[in-house]
């Protein structure tokens, strides 16, 4: 009984969070699909300003990314500073397989090519999502293979390098031996509308787009929880807590880390495809170091290793970045007659939040039980140490 109680509590907690997530998604979908089109201008204005559906859909993409990184950083404890590379790779898979860009081909596999733009490759969105995930997983393997024998700072630096190399390749990939691979800084535009077996999700079908990316995020949440609770997940957590002890217990270190890197990359790939569909294209300018850091901050602030903590962290930071600061700024300026450009203080507020979190709640908004225990252990050890030192000094 005592052994099953924590597992039962965790399952119950997951169920509650899942219901909460589903409720929020259902609320915004139904609201935007059926209620807001008929509501008064004021109501429409309020929701468009504070909870714009485009921004809500973007938040779902950030959740996907953060959950992908959480597998690498939160579960396996590998510091990855170049996760944006996987976002870029996923995005370009969508660009290659859902647009007229590769014009020397004319392939349409259940795709939705626009009239007059039939050249190029047009695959069904499900296939592109799968291929996006597989492609980034392969890149996770290619990157992870030679680097995962490194530890801590060294690994972080190598991932940082890859996080710079891949976006730079995308930016300069308009002429690789005479071949235009990425269209360079011009990016790839004109992505096909999603066609779900006859039901076309067009440019203005925002509720459907939101639902689509929410389902993707929901699936990622489900897999993240299942993975963590499985054999592989427990091996990751063991490595994260104590690599030497895990190795002594028979956990194959390199292979287990390798899996985390490849599986974590899938989140980036699928999110990259989803984001490209939302924006209608893929543009190399987006993929910079700051994005990697923001995703990492979402994981750390939310609660490393805790799926729901990461979801909350990603939601809060993505909302602040997208509309939160602008709206709060407008509210303050209108209320007090000031003229403060709130978004320009974003990094100041962001930095302040990080410092405060590290000082008062290092384990994140919603910490994972193990991490909370470790943090508390450290605190207790520190207190013991101080107490011992005081004793020695007084003697």
């Amino acid at each position: 009984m005592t052994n099953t109680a924590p597992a039962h509590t965790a399952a119950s907690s997951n169920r509650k969070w899942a219901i909460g997530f589903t409720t929020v998604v259902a609320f915004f979908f139904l609201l935007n699909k059926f209620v807001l089109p008929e509501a008064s201008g004021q109501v429409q204005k309020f929701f468009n300003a504070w909870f714009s559906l485009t921004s809500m859909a973007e938040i779902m993409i950030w959740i996907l990314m953060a959950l992908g990184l959480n597998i690498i950083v939160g579960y396996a404890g590998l510091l990855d500073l170049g996760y944006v590379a996987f976002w870029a790779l996923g995005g370009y898979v969508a660009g290659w397989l859902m647009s007229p860009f590769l014009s020397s081909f004319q392939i349409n596999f259940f795709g939705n090519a626009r009239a007059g733009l039939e050249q190029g490759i047009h695959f069904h969105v499900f296939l592109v999502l799968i291929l996006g995930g597989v492609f980034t997983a392969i890149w996770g393997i290619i990157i992870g293979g030679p680097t995962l024998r490194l530890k801590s700072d060294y690994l972080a630096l190598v991932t940082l390098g890859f996080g710079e190399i891949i976006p730079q390749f995308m930016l300069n990939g308009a002429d690789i031996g005479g071949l235009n691979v990425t269209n360079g800084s011009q990016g790839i535009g004109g992505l096909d509308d999603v066609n779900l077996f006859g039901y076309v999700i067009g440019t203005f079908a925002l509720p459907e787009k939101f639902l689509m990316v929410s389902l993707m995020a929901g699936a990622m949440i489900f897999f993240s929880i299942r993975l963590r609770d499985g054999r592989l997940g427990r091996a990751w957590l063991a490595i994260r807590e104590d690599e030497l002890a895990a190795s002594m217990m028979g956990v194959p270190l390199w292979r287990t880390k390798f899996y985390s890197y490849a599986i974590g990359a899938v989140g980036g790939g699928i999110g990259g495809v989803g984001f490209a569909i939302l924006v209608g294209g893929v543009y190399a300018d987006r993929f910079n170091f700051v994005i990697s850091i923001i995703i990492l901050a979402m994981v750390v602030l939310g609660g490393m290793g805790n799926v729901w903590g990461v979801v909350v962290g990603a939601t809060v930071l993505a909302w602040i970045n997208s509309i939160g600061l602008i709206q709060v700024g407008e509210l303050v300026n209108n209320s007090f007659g000031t003229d403060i450009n709130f978004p320009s203080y974003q990094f100041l507020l962001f930095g302040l939040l990080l410092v405060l979190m590290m000082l008062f709640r290092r384990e994140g908004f919603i910490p994972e039980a193990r991490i909370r225990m470790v943090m508390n252990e450290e605190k207790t050890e520190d207190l013991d140490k101080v107490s011992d030192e005081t004793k020695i000094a007084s003697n």
Partner: protein
Amino acid sequence: MIKSIKIGALAVSGALALAACSGGGDSASEVLVVGTDLPLQGASADASKSTNEVVALVLEQAGGKAGDFTVEIKEYDDSTAAKGAWDDAACAKNAQDHVANTAEVAVMGTYNSGCAKIIIPVLNQAGMLMVSHANTYPGLTVEWDKGEPGLYYPSGARNYARVIAHDGFQGTAAAQFLFNEQGVKTLAVMDDTQAYGIGIADAVQIEFERLGGTVIRESWDVKQTQGYTATFEKIKASGATAVYYGGIFDNNGVQLVKDKTTVLGDNTAFLAMAPDGFSGYPTLREMPEAEGLWMTFAGKSLDGIIKGGGAPAKFIEDYTAKYGAQPNSSYAVYGGVAMQVILKAIAASDGTRQGVLDAVFAGESLCLTAEESISGMGFCLSTETGDVDTVTMTLQQMLGGVETDVRTLDIS
């Protein structure tokens, strides 16, 4: 568990009911809105602020009206502080917001061509007019890259116009000036690896090679912190006698200009030329290494507008009186010109989006006379491409720390 589900269901239904009870459909607004879509964060923030002020002043001087319609402005920000520049997600969001705002009939912007690529197709499907003051990427209106410009117009009809000549013209003018007037036969063309820079460098290269010259193509990467002396050494060895900086000064231009002088000598010893991406930067003006730099500006420079006198100069005076300083850049003035086009289109319309769009793309070309335009340049917009029919290219040279107008360039 059941309790949780009940609470969730109650919350959803309660919120939906609350929203639904708030009223029925909104009646059509009598005030028409023009959206401005600019990057209000990061390096372009000052230029965008100035552009918004010019646009507001144009509307104010028109009495807040276009024909019989009352017009208001709504400012949109297509940048994020996190990026410090235009952001693709912000552009996609703004595009949807423009369409969702039923009172909005046209958009003035964008500043960045990359952002325009995202917004144009969305507005196109909603039948909304967009007029840019600063997008110079040619492919937005004319055949340039694969699938362009059709890629941006899913409905098959045009909805995008711009009041400034595209890079094809600026690159052509620069190449002809260097080859025909300066006698340059081997030219080093550099780009900053970004959309604008590559576009304009391509245009220079194409025209220079067409004239019979030889082009040495190089790039400068903004992240290359160790500088560009190695690249300039390569240019020196190639036999080039001039260099063209295809890009914007923001992209590590200080280092670029310094390294060029170190390796190749000053601009009298080794000629250098830049597009309008180097225009309007006080830092560049203060650099001794920039002395003698040739520049082009697609349109009339601010200096030229003031010296031209008349109504345009008066407008700059009014702006200065109201905001305490001159407009930040010539692009800001062209923002006002784009607003003038939109106001004229609204005045000629029935107040609907389609009516405003038709005023530019159906029937006769919409024109601004030199007397009407706050830039002092008259033009008509092509109903086929949305481009201006009159191209004025100003040749400038940095003399004594001032971007001095030399003359206008003819493009053959």
